[in-house]
């Protein structure tokens, strides 16, 4: 019902709150322009970008834009920035990289992801180690802490061996004696140490031998750290490490990474680990 008595034009005949009448004026021109501009933009957008679903695929868009293409472009940007360093790495030894402040810094920053993907599962994200897995941040290295030896450990892996000494070799009382001496840091003064042949691998000074991977028995760092350290030492002596004849033996094996990682990646990891805080 239209009430045309309003001097300002046609109304819809609706009245609200006693006084508000709705006029039938057309929308403002700028508003209509905005409306048309909007749908034109939508059409252009769907022409430019991939959009409409088709029977077996979709309309690819006139610009040929894809999200994977944009990702690859971005990745290439990163690779290009890194190229100035990455190009140098294959021709250099790990020691040479370590000696070059700029390259060392680059490797330290860029290899965090590599370490996280491949090493952190056992050694912890910061290299702090985990029960059964040695810390990489301290200065105690079973197989040597020089950059070359670290690189070798990563590439070829490591598997030390300590025969079980329990049962036929040592009585429980002897194991107690040896373990207490190790725990107190006085193993070299214990007569059993030489008498039972421990000295052969762990050395007259008790510091172990990097060539064999035998543990240092006189420092403050424990390879198999536990709450009850004395009990842990006893268990290690009794069952050995990686002794195939004892089902309760300690298992300690670092897998080889050559073949899984490129030589350059291994080199970068060696530098990274060396710089974590304990490299020698």
């Amino acid at each position: 019902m239209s009430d045309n008595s309003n001097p300002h034009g046609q109304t819809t005949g609706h009245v609200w709150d006693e006084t508000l009448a709705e006029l039938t004026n057309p929308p403002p021109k700028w508003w209509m322009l905005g409306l048309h501009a909007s749908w034109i933009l939508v059409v252009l957008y769907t022409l430019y970008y991939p959009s409409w679903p088709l029977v077996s695929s979709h309309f690819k868009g006139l610009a040929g834009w894809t999200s994977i293409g944009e990702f690859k472009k971005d990745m290439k940007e990163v690779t290009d920035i890194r190229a100035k360093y990455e190009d140098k790495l294959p021709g250099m030894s790990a020691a040479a990289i370590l000696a070059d402040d700029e390259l060392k810094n680059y490797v330290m920053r860029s290899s965090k992801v590599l370490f996280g993907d491949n090493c952190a599962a056992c050694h912890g994200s910061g290299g702090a180690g985990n029960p059964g897995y040695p810390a990489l941040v301290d200065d105690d290295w079973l197989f040597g802490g020089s950059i070359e030896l670290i690189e070798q450990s990563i590439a070829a892996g490591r598997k030390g061996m300590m025969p079980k000494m329990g049962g036929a070799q040592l009585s429980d009382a002897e194991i107690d004696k040896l373990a207490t001496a190790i725990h107190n840091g006085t193993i070299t003064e214990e007569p059993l140490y030489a008498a039972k042949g421990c000295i052969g691998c762990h050395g007259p000074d008790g510091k172990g031998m990097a060539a064999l991977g035998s543990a240092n028995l006189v420092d403050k760092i424990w390879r198999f750290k536990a709450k009850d350290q004395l009990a842990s030492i006893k268990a290690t002596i009794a069952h050995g490490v990686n002794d195939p004849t004892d089902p309760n033996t300690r298992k300690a094996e670092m897998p080889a990474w050559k073949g899984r990682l490129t030589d350059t990646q291994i080199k970068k990891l060696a530098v990274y680990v060396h710089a974590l805080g304990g490299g020698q």
Partner: protein
Amino acid sequence: MTESSTSNESKARYSDDIYEEAANWHVNTGEEKIYPKKAAGKWRRLKWITHGIWLILFIGPYLRWNGQQAILFDIPNRQFHIFGLTILPQDVWMLALVLLFFAMLLAAVTTIAGRVYCGFFCFQTAWTDLFIWLEDKIEGPPAKRRKLDAAPWTAEKLRKKSLKLLVWFVISVLTGISFVAWFTDARQLWHDLLTFNASAIEYGVIALFIAGTMLLAGKLREQTCFWLCPYARIQGVMYDKETILPTYDFHRGEPRGRLKKGQLVEGNGDCIDCKQCIAVCPTGIDIRMGQQEGCITCSLCLDACDAVMEKIGRPTGLIRYASMDEMEGKTQLPLLKRPRVLIYLTILVLSIGGIIYGLTSLGHIEVKVLHGRTPLFVQRSDGTIQNKYDVKILNKTTDDISIKVTASGIEGMVLKGAEKPLLARKGNTGSYIMFINAPAENIKDERTPITFKIVNLDDPTQTSSYESMFFAPKP
């Protein structure tokens, strides 16, 4: 319809009243071009002086300081250079205070004297005034301009119009270039522009400014203040009854009426309805209808009215700066007894205090230390405890410098990684991994404070220090 006829009638009357009121209140939405008359007087002179503040925009980029551009907002390198000071993103809290200061200044000034910013300082007013002044020079006074616009296109009209547009265009181009020059080396910019070597962004921004200046100052003018600018409305709500504004003194002016034989008619007020106040108004309003949204408080009507009052031998100030309280015959509270003024002033003082503190304590070099996690500490084989630190050194000077890092806190501790002086690149934050080894017997607590200190070896007066922690197992 079910309502009674009386109710319908009263409805119709209500709505008619509302429509009538709205209809009598004419608001120009751009359908009517304003041809302001050239004003003269003390307010006009004052306004040209206050508009002069915008000369800084044109001159600023060419100032030099120690061989560098004195003021340079270097966005790509994230640095602001202001007379030898380098402000980095780390100092951005000062920008917040600067913004707060100006926001409060706007509020304080507006509550005291209305839209002073709009009328005297705003770029929209300044550029529009300049453009209209040029229009007046080229096309003549309002009557001539009206006639010229209505006239058919002739060679004379074409000449005047194109000359005007050309002059406007030159000003717009200079405005655009001057703006861009704040963000890049000004001399290099001119060189690049003249050899057509400037970047697409530079050309784009300059083009936008040309279009914006021509449109806003040439075409939209007062419509910008009516419909586009949010500050126009925001400032309107900052008024109170004590705010002084250009006000028509209706007690003195009404009833208005024209002169008869050069004399005021007996019984009439001082307003002779000469409409000079409307003629000079850049927004085309009638100040005699009271304070309204269109008034940018530019005060030109004060000049126009005063000139007329002098001519007819009446006291000036029929239109003057006055508050609503004054019009209602109340006494004004002194400025410093108004709570709003005091609150605004307090915030102003605090923010400017913060800025001064910030500017005076801006260091040349800065050190921050992140303690390494996982692990918090490392047991070393010789019994010492090792902690890892990421030492971040910010060099705000304009040179690459060498830095010496020292640390103290635990007896017998050794800082590793700082044996050689470190190279800190200018305007950069360098990150350096360092270790501290401390003998276990000297560590008293799980956490011990450690102070890192850096010294610029090239200028030992420049130092900075940072306190971090040394973590150790429970003793």
